[in-house]
């Protein structure tokens, strides 16, 4: 390694002299030498903007700035920023995962210093180099404009009759995330910590004949090396399909499959060690597409996890039929039948996956990881490392975006733990951006054959689909994906007869899995486009056709899913009015169009991944004598706002100041189990668990206060900040006093627990529990597009998104989920694709070529919240984080048809394809 040099840097007004390698970037020196970890690393090479700092006032990518060359200049990082912008971001609800936000703040600061009164377009341009995956940018842009215009946004008060529900409480972590205080996993370091790397397969499919580690072992600075033989236990987040190992044991199954992991004194040495590893491969024919997978000239897996020989590459097949399908089609006056293809794409959180593992002297393992599922990671670590689960602790620091991409165990967590055990020192592994793409578990490519019939008066009669799912090399959640692709299509538009077959195939590509809207975004695209085609065929307004087939609240779908509330009609009404649908549709000039689509999605699943008699979610409240309550829950705050949701529930029940509620989540040692942040289950399940705990505590507090006051319990009224006597509101006690009173009355620490216990739900047939949820959200979108008919250029002008969330516990956070869902779906519709070349190599494993939408072209989104007050949810709440993604893709597709008369049946809607379609039609 090159000799380190002494650097004299001026950072945030302070002089620093640091010793660092000459090749280090400013980012590395800031984060790893000066402990200024507020500056984040997202993409390796200048494609995301998370590392933006100011150098002499200019927004600068610190990952593309040599520290040596930053000497003599004024460097400013988020740690040196005043709080003006951060407060505006918080007030505007611009914070979700928070990972991109320090960089975003720096770009905004540079703009405002140069141009104190920017127009919106200038703000969007100035933030154009900072990718945000959570928000869709609207609230970020608004926050910058707020600062420029001196607008102060006050949080909305609670809904009438409520103490906290309906109020825009700020997230407990928002300022800390904005200002770089809240640690993400890569912000942590431990004494003696080593750095790990994973050697990955260059072949899409090959047998491993041998691995020679000798030269790597001999390299100075290398402390541990592990191979698949060290971690042979197969696992999967779904316990029924354990088909992967931490590192490959017999074969590699995609370009990028992990083979060897190393821990060394630094990443450079780890890289050098991996270059010395010799793996003897016997290349095998690769299966890279659905046709090959089905023809099965080669098998991705020759045997399954029970050692049974496989005959083909189909790893899951589901075929179901409900109602009189053939009779339904026979009764139809119009039938639409076609094939759609939904391209794969990936989550691309701005924070790369990262894990840090440490074994203590007593043999206890702690793993810090950016994960959505601490509980499942805990379980898998114990299994794969063959260690007593009682010795394993998983801690989830802040997670910088996940979206389903961090919802199962990954090789880096298992390898970090194994390496740390071998080395006797802590080991951190941080994925490169390419590895994030390879880890994938993103949206499955699906080929969808779909048939849909209706009568002349617009009553749907039957629907049939045949779906081929391209799964990649392993199962992940694929069994569920296969079910969901059929099960979840039966609302909010009622299908009176429905038949589907869905088959998932192994291919020699990175494994697909659950991406936001898991399993149904693809078939929903086909169905909602088919409904639109039927409406045109029948001469009906597409909104009206959906209205006529609305599933009523409190009814069962054709596949026996009970849906307590369906907000389809109010959602349609809302987007129809907001978009000016009636007045404008059909009157827009050629090239401009409006499209509508709808969806329904689960709020958690009745069927937990590991069936047990124990609750899906547990919450514990602990009061201290200062008047504070600590809420402990295993729920994973991943940017969606679950910590804030827990505070809202406790504050609502106890009238306690939200700032007096502390949340402890994501630590398996400290919290009751919650299964994790997936399936949009957290608000409903953790919310109900928190509500149960808080109501128990409230009852006990009421009893104590009533006894003290010598009144009946029903005379005690819970108020905001203080409780009072119903007959004499002048007589009151602050919440803190009531807590002390109750502790004194009970004579022991004031603790309460609550849980969400899974109820039996779902159809009476085998598999009928899959897709069964306590409650379902409904969404309707209208998109307006502009198509340049000569170039195929497509612009989404505006999106109106009405979402029935049951009850908005925190309207700003709910709206943020709706806007973020639209933004992610917009990227899927227009740009993003996870595709491979003829050798199975990812075409675009970087944030530059993959192309997340930027602030410049992202469309404005008007989120409209519809509240149906579902009896199953806490205060009526249902999910808001996934359902609102589905409709945007078909809504844009249908708007394109409205604009220029062509149907695109393949995503993404690339301008080249649009132009070809336009020229094909004349």
């Amino acid at each position: 390694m090159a000799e380190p040099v002494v650097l004299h840097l001026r950072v945030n007004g302070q002089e620093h002299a640091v010793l660092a390698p000459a090749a280090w970037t400013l980012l590395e020196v800031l984060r790893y030498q000066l402990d200024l970890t507020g500056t984040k690393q997202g993409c390796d090479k200048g494609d995301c903007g998370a590392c933006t700092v100011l150098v002499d006032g200019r927004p600068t990518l610190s990952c593309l700035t040599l520290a040596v060359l930053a000497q003599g200049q004024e460097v400013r990082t988020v740690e040196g920023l005043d709080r003006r912008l951060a407060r505006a971001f918080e007030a505007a609800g611009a914070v979700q995962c928070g990972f991109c936000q320090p960089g975003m703040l720096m770009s905004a600061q540079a703009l405002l210093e140069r141009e104190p009164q920017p127009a919106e377009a200038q703000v969007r341009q100035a933030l154009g180099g900072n990718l945000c995956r959570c928000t869709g940018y609207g609230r970020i842009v608004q926050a910058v404009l707020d600062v420029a215009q001196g607008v102060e946004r006050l949080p909305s008060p609670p809904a009438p009759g409520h103490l906290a529900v309906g109020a825009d409480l700020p997230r407990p972590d928002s300022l800390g995330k904005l200002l770089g205080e809240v640690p993400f996993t890569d912000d942590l370091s431990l004494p003696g910590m080593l750095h790990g790397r994973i050697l990955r397969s260059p072949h899409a499919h090959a047998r491993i004949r041998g691995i020679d580690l000798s030269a790597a072992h001999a390299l100075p600075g290398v402390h541990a090396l592990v191979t698949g033989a060290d971690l042979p236990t197969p696992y999967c987040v779904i316990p029924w399909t354990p088909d992967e190992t931490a590192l490959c044991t017999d074969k590699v199954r995609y370009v990028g499959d992990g083979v060897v992991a190393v821990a060394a004194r630094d990443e450079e040495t780890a890289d050098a060690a991996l270059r010395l590893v010799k793996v003897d491969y016997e290349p095998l024919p690769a299966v890279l597409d659905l046709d090959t997978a089905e023809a099965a000239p080669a098998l991705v897996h020759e045997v399954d996890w029970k050692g049974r020989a496989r005959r083909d590459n189909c790893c899951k097949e589901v075929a179901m039929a409900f109602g009189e399908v053939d009779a339904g089609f026979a009764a139809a006056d119009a039938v639409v039948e076609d094939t759609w293809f939904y391209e794969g794409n990936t989550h691309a959180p701005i924070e790369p996956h990262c894990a840090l593992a440490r074994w203590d002297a007593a043999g206890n393992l702690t793993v810090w990881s950016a994960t959505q599922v601490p509980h499942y990671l805990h379980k898998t670590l114990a299994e794969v490392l063959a260690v007593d689960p009682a010795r394993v602790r998983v801690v989830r620091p802040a997670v910088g975006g996940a979206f389903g991409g961090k919802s199962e165990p990954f090789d880096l967590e298992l390898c970090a733990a194994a390496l740390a055990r071998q080395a006797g020192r802590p080991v951190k592994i941080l994925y490169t951006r390419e590895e994030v793409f390879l880890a994938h578990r993103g949206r499955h490519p699906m080929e969808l054959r779909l048939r849909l019939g209706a009568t002349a008066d617009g009553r749907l009669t039957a629907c049939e689909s045949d779906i081929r799912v391209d799964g990649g090399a392993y199962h992940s959640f694929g069994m569920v994906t296969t079910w969901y692709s059929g099960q979840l299509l039966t609302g909010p538009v009622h299908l009176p007869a429905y038949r589907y077959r869905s088959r998932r195939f192994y291919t020699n590509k990175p494994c697909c899995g659950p991406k936001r809207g898991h399993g149904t975004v693809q078939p929903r695209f086909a169905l909602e486009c088919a409904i639109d085609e039927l409406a045109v065929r029948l001469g009906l307004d597409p909104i009206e056709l959906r209205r006529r087939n609305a599933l009523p609240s409190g009814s069962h779908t054709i596949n026996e899913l009970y849906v307590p509330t369906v907000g389809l009609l109010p959602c349609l009404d809302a987007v129809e009015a907001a978009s000016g649908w009636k007045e404008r549709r059909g009157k827009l000039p050629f090239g401009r169009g409006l499209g509508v689509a709808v969806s329904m999605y689960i709020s958690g699943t009745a069927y937990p991944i590991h069936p047990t008699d124990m609750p899906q979610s547990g919450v514990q409240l602990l009061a201290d004598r200062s008047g504070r309550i600590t809420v402990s829950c295993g729920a994973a705050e991943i940017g969606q706002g679950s910590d804030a949701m827990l505070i809202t529930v406790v504050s609502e029940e106890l009238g306690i100041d939200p700032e007096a509620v502390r949340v402890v989540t994501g630590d398996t040692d400290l919290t009751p189990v919650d299964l994790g942040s997936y399936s949009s289950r957290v608000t409903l399940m953790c919310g109900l668990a928190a509500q149960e705990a808080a109501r128990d505590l409230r009852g006990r507090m009421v009893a104590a206060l009533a006894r003290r006051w010598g009144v009946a319990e029903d005379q005690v009224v819970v108020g905001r900040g203080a409780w009072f006597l119903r007959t004499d509101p002048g007589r009151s006690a602050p919440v803190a006093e009531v807590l002390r009173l109750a502790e004194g009355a009970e004579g022991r620490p004031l603790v309460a627990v609550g849980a969400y216990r899974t109820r039996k739900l779902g159809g009476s047939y085998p598999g009928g529990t899959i897709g069964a949820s306590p409650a379902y959200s409904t969404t309707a979108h209208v998109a307006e597009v502009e198509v340049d008919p000569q170039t195929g250029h497509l612009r989404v002008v505006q999106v109106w998104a009405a979402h029935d969330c049951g009850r908005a516990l925190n309207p700003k956070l709910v709206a943020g989920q709706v806007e973020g869902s639209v933004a992610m779906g917009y990227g899927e519709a227009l740009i993003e694709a996870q595709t491979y070349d003829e050798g199975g190599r990812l075409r675009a494993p970087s944030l530059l070529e993959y192309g997340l939408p930027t602030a410049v072209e992202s469309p404005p989104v008007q989120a409209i919240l519809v509240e149906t007050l579902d009896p199953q949810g806490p205060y009526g709440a249902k999910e808001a984080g996934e359902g609102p993604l589905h409709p945007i893709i078909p809504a844009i597709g249908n708007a394109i048809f409205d604009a220029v008369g062509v149907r695109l049946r393949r995503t993404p809607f690339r301008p080249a394809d649009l132009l070809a379609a336009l020229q094909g039609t004349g």
Partner: protein
Amino acid sequence: MLRMQGFTVQVARSPEEAVALYAAAPDAAFIAGGTDLLPEIKLGLSQPRTLVAIGTALPATVQDEGADLVLGAGLRLEQVAALGLPALSAAAAHVGSPQVRAAGTLGGNVMLSPRCMYYNQTPAWRASLGGCMRAEGPLCRVTGSAARCVATQCSDTLPALLVLGARLRLCSPAGTREVPLADLLRYDGMRPMDLAPGELLTHVILPRPAPGTRCRVDKLAARGSIDFPMLVTAVLLRLRGAVVEELRIAVGAVSPQPRLLPVDAWVGRPLHEAAVGELADLAWQKVRPVASVEGDVAWRREVARVTVRRALESLRAEA
């Protein structure tokens, strides 16, 4: 994170010192803004042992020399964007992101390393492929031949500079020389410009356009920010009445070499609707996008036709 190692940095105070340092050091590379070079080093595409830092050595001035405007190659792109120069400022304003424009220089964008989906990848990715002729391999993965590398020159500014008739001033230990840009550009992704090793671009010289000259640049990219172009068209037009007195059309980001289209036949003729159509068709005929970067080649070719037609129509309407 992708880490870099193996080089030291020497800071040059003048162009002369920079070229001397470069000549003295084995495996040297110049670094100014670094936004193009450092990703290449991180990906192992460039493995210099010495970086000669030219950020402060390069002139960042704008000199009015009567017939010419002389731009320092060290001008940052955001500064170029703010100069209000025809075609060039608009082109500079569309480079990359605000951060890239705040660090990246005019010289760096002129000297941009051509890009290819088989080349701009990690070492592991390229090892899986078996490399290409530009790095670790025998032949070009786009064409399947070893004749030449067809990486795409994705510079936003080169087409604008071509229509403006720019000359480059180059410094080397042998002295300085000044060469028309068009004479330096080559159809070779591995050597896109005909420079001697260690030759340093110090100035970009723009002949002052005749009064009444109008220019336009258009960029085609997947997103509104960050991206390299998939097509850049630049048009310079001067009319007297309806008659073309001066016309230049350049197309870039479709091949290793941005090119001026042969449009002299239209000079001296009125720019009627038919002529606009002919020129647009000429663009379609001459533009042959190479599939080394994202973007369907037939589509980019068609968009070149549309963009040139629209540019001519809008410039004609302005006149």
